[in-house]
């Protein structure tokens, strides 16, 4: 049985129907190149436009290369919208960074934008870290925000080894106890909270009707967060696919792998944080003023587009500033 290897049109990003111009680019199995070439030539010769000129303008029913682009909505920050086009619906978006890199500010801005659009949002807070005053200052509609606060005091239920939300323990993954002795207690707490996060996420995705679901894993240790199986992220992505729900994950390091459609890195460079003094004059430096004359008015955030499956554009970065609620 002879065979010919022909790259799919989708992979090559070309129209489904062969045309005369694509003749030379078709590759064949090296051992059967002679027969293959004839077969391909026959196929090209026999392509529909040459058979019947009336079919030259026919649009094929299956446009494998043209997957519908997801709808983009504003993230609440103009610079991010300019960088990425906004946040995509029906996709998983990750934003990661270290402490004080602006992750929570971006998260609250996205929630505010979503509630302004009239959508219902859910925040699954793994560390119970949400600040009510920050939420109010961000002008988030509190009636449309569901807050799920995970904690260590929650009832612990073991669901068995076959639970899709079960986090494999360090021992099961082959890690020795010595490596985790110094953070054993914190790791155990993180696992318990992660299990709550994943189970709550499953339930909310199944329930549906939310425009934005945010998983706040910013305080979860990376080694604990990385134990979430990729199959879980794949399941979450499939759950929001073809739906108007956005799934946003806030973390310290990327953990969803290829399941995320948009990956953004935030940071505040150590030498470029911006703190303005309220009474600083031109010839005074900020450090010379007493502390009671100093005021934190905002942070300068650097955001970099690491990966985007939505548009093939080179990595870019932008800077934007956040404003403290008391800065006016």
């Amino acid at each position: 049985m002879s065979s010919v290897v022909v790259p799919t049109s989708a992979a090559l990003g070309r129209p489904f129907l062969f045309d005369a111009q694509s003749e030379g680019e078709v590759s064949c199995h090296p051992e059967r190149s002679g027969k293959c070439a004839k077969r391909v030539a026959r196929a090209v010769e026999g392509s529909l436009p040459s058979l019947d000129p009336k079919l030259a303008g026919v649009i094929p029913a299956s446009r494998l290369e043209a997957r519908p682009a997801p709808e983009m909505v504003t993230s609440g920050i103009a610079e991010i919208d300019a960088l990425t086009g906004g946040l995509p619906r029906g996709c998983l978006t990750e934003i990661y960074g270290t402490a004080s890199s602006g992750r929570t500010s971006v998260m609250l801005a996205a929630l505010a934008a979503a509630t302004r659009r009239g959508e219902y949002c859910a925040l699954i807070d793994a560390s119970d870290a949400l600040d009510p005053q920050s939420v109010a200052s961000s002008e988030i509609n509190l009636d449309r925000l569901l807050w799920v606060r995970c904690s260590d005091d929650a009832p612990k239920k073991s669901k068995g080894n076959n639970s899709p939300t079960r986090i494999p323990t360090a021992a099961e993954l082959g890690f020795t106890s010595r490596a985790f002795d110094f953070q054993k207690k914190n790791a155990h707490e993180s696992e318990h909270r992660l299990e709550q996060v994943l189970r709550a996420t499953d339930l909310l995705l199944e329930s549906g009707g939310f425009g934005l679901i945010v998983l706040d894993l910013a305080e979860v240790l990376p080694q604990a967060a990385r134990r979430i199986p990729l199959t879980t992220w794949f399941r979450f992505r499939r759950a929001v696919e073809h739906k108007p729900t956005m799934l946003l994950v806030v973390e310290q390091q990327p953990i969803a792998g290829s399941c995320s459609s948009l990956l953004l890195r935030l940071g505040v460079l150590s030498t470029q944080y911006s703190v303005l003094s309220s009474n600083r004059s031109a010839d005074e430096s900020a450090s010379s003023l007493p502390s009671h004359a100093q005021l934190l008015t905002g942070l300068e955030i650097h955001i970099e587009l690491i990966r985007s499956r939505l548009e093939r554009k080179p990595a870019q970065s932008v800077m934007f500033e956040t404003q403290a609620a008391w800065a006016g």
Partner: protein
Amino acid sequence: MFACIYIPNFPVAAALRAEPDLQARPVAIFEGKPPLEKIIAVDESAARLGIAPGMTKAQAELCSELALRLRSPLQESSTHAALIDCAQSFSPCVEDSACDTVLLDLAGMESLLGSVAEIARALFERALTLGFKPNIAVASNSDAALLAARGFSGITVIPAGKEVEHLGALPVTVLFAEQLDADQKDEAGHLLGTLDRWGIRNLRALAALPEVALSERLGQRGLYLQQLARGGSLRTLVPVEAPLLFEEAVELDHPIVLLEPLAFLLNRLLEQVCSRLASRALATQELCLTLALSNLTGIDDDYLNAGIPSESDGSVATQTTSQIISSRQTKFTRKLSLPLPMLDAKVFLKLLQLDLNAHPPGAPIMQIHLSAEPARPRSAQGGLFLPPAPEPEKLELTLARIAGIVGEDRVGALELLDTHHPEGFRMRRFVAEVARKTPQKQTPDSSEAQAAITALRRFRPPLRVNVMLENGQPSRLNCAKKKEVQGEVLWKAGPWRSSGDWWERDAWSRDEWDLAVRNGEAVSFYRLVHDLLGGGWFIEGTYD
């Protein structure tokens, strides 16, 4: 025209409504104190086996196929309420004649519900959905309809003026209701005995008697009965203003220990309650489940009946006995408050199951009582261009499940309190109201994006830190619990003093600092708090 709904063999019908599985078996109902329990009602299958009212329970137990059930006032009350609901779903003028009989005034209903035959058919089918099989009769006056319902099974329609023809063949016993008290039974027995001695067996014969002679022998009562037999009685209905009570109950012969069989019974009760609510075009926003638990074990009836002799009088012994009796069945009550009026038995069952899983009764269950608070059903007009919203029923189930995972008070919406306390908020119920057009701008343009607020991430509880002071100001800090929170203070702003609730026990007073702390190559921004009352230093959160 008037309609009558009559449930024959009412105690049996009430038991079958609570346990539909018994319909395949012969059933007999008994009551009384042991060992003198007597059969008071039997169904047709049991009658064919030779079981009759008046037999003792011991005699009836000789029949192995027979299902014996104790008479339950609760179940009869629920059945009667369902009967009223069925009638009131067709006519606003309903008379509660007896526990097993209701009369409806169908005046003006034909233009809404169709012909009287169609109304009768619809009544019958509605009654079947509510769990009982009645006799339906329609006549030009209420008493004729009542007699026809008692005498004929199934659906009977008597045209106007044909009452005597249709009712003539009925026995005189239909003139008296089945459920009578002692005095009424004696009077009925006396009158029936007299008519029987005269050879009057049916209503046609009674109607043919001379009125004067009848009144001389039986008085006004006799004349009234003759009027009924002639189908000529005219009276107005006394409408019932039944309170909107939707309750269902079931008493158990054997206590239930597991939640799974309880769910089976709850499902049946919920379906009955929802059917009754639906017949009134109502929904419910609150369900109340009361379980009577078997608390005391090992205490037999001899001890309870004998009582405890007292030095002063018997009242102490009586109180002790009644306390024992009342405490033998403690009540376990759970209330389910719904955010919106709903009418879905499956959702209610799931919510009750989740609630009972979180708060188990802790003792065997002897009795189940379920009541629903009626409410107007919600009306919502969905829009094509409105943003999606969670379905209320699904959302309520989801929130109940999440509450079982994280805790009841840890899921919901945020509500800020009118206080300067840093943690001045509380959790309230999250309700996804029907989306409606708001005057808010909903354009998704990026031009609508506003400046991002510098957010704070809180540590709950706040992290205790050791702070090195330099000239009274923090210069270095170190946290034992979180290694990342340590380092040299590069920049600081503050202190900002705040205090409050000095009149309360939970008074607070603190100094706040905003710090930039270097830890290695990273710089983080923290809010440092000095508790002026307790004297400790805490990192309250990170600016992120």
